[in-house]
């Protein structure tokens, strides 16, 4: 059935790769930020503990 | 000895829940009315062609029971929470599973009574021809309701004590009920369609199997759910 498609359905292939790369790339960047923010928050809280 | 205590406890919870329902009546009446209303809406969506209605009857009946039943599950804990009775119940010595069993049986009776009304109305509205072996249909109904009530009672123990309980219960419950609902609907459909226990029998066996699996799983997990 695939051979009946123009270019062997290349647009679907491109779309699937683009979606995958964007989703995983965004996830990578978001997680880098999330862990960094959580660590900063923790450092703040830990400092508060030392003050008392 | 301990087991007899548990049985007594279960009986007490069932009795208490059903008495509360019987005294108020408003709860049961409104839930059953809602079930009928949903059937009417399905009829409008699928009708007026008689054959189309008959084909869809099994699915519509089960979904009406499900949608109305969901309200009953949250209610059964909500009554406890309002009076702070659940904490008191948990403080009594004895097994926690007895609470679950009690709630389960009370909900089972509640939903079965509702089912009788909804099915009776549904048979009329959807122009269903009842086959001669109608006792089998009662068996399918009972097995399906057991599956719905087991999971419904279990998930309501969590959702009723969380924020956004109205959304959370269906969101958690419906995906879990897919096998039970699918088996119930297919068994009912095959049976009403007249293929006497060819496909229907296999679905009934699967339904019974699902009931047992979920019954065991929820009984094991309930301890953790009710504890906090």
């Amino acid at each position: 059935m695939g051979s009946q498609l123009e270019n062997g359905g290349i647009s679907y292939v491109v779309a699937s790769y683009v979606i995958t790369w964007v989703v995983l790339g965004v996830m990578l960047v978001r997680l880098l930020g999330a862990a960094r923010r959580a660590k900063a928050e923790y450092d703040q809280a830990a400092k508060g503990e030392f003050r008392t | 000895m301990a087991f007899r205590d548990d049985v007594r406890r279960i009986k007490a919870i069932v009795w208490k829940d059903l008495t509360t329902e019987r005294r108020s009546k408003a709860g049961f009446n409104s839930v059953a009315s809602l079930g009928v209303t949903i059937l009417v809406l399905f009829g409008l969506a699928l009708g007026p062609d008689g054959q189309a209605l008959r084909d869809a009857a099994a699915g519509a009946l089960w979904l009406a029971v499900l949608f109305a039943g969901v309200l009953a599950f949250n209610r059964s804990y909500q009554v406890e929470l309002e009076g702070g009775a659940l904490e008191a119940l948990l403080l009594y010595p004895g097994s926690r599973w007895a609470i679950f069993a009690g709630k389960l049986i009370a909900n089972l009776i509640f939903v079965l009574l509702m089912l009788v009304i909804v099915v009776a109305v549904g048979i009329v509205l959807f122009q269903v021809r009842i086959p001669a072996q109608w006792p089998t249909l009662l068996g399918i109904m009972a097995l399906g309701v057991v599956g719905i009530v087991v999971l419904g009672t279990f998930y309501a123990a969590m959702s009723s004590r969380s924020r956004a309980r109205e959304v959370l219960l269906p969101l958690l419950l419906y995906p879990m009920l897919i096998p039970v609902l699918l088996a119930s609907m297919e068994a009912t459909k095959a049976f009403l369609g007249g293929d006497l226990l060819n496909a229907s029998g296999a679905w009934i066996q699967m339904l019974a199997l699902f009931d047992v699996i979920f019954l065991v799983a929820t009984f094991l997990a309930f301890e953790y759910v009710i504890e906090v």
Partner: protein
Amino acid sequence: MSPATPSQFGPPKPAPVWLGWGAFLFFLFTQVYAVATSPADAMMGHLQKMMYVHVPAAWVTFAAFGVVLVASLHFLWKEDERADLLAASAAEVGSLFCGLTLVLGMLWGRPTWGVWWSWDARLTSTLVLFLIFVGYLSLRSFVEDPHRRGQWSAAVGILGAINVPIVWMSVRWWRTLHQIQSNPRGLSPEYLRGLLLNLAAFTLLTIWFIWRRYEAARYERAAEHAAQAAALGDNNG
């Protein structure tokens, strides 16, 4: 209400940043490699190349759900709060890959079957898995008490894990009774190396995602513990 004391723990072992970028670069490499080396399939044409994103995404989805199951059981068994945080991290990452798997499956189904969606056992049980992930994550967001949240979500995760194979089985039954299931997939050995490489890359990336998410969750909880300890110290002093 509950007497359970949350296990006090300090900051976690961080997931190295180089591992994340390394996994991502490795992933890009295996993708390009697989696409470049695989010849167009006689039956499916270039559509075969979607295998290198779709199959690994599906694999890591189920692996992540396996982590949720094991961590949930461990949490109920040992009452270790870290297991709960791990389960939550795996569920978040798993739901992302589950959604991705579904979208990629539709992109494959449309040119192959002519429809975006088909009610076969694999698609339906993946969709149900996604719905269970969604329910699991919203349960977590609606419950504040950490101990209660941990126990409840563990129960939901374990029951969900029991449910998915049952859904698969019942939908398979449902399909076979109604119509014959067509399954046009088969794998020739020339595609195998690309697929295995991509499976490895996706797995690495998923490990890093879960680790990093877990790290963030650990810091959040540790900060709460520290704040709690500080407040208690004030009261005593």
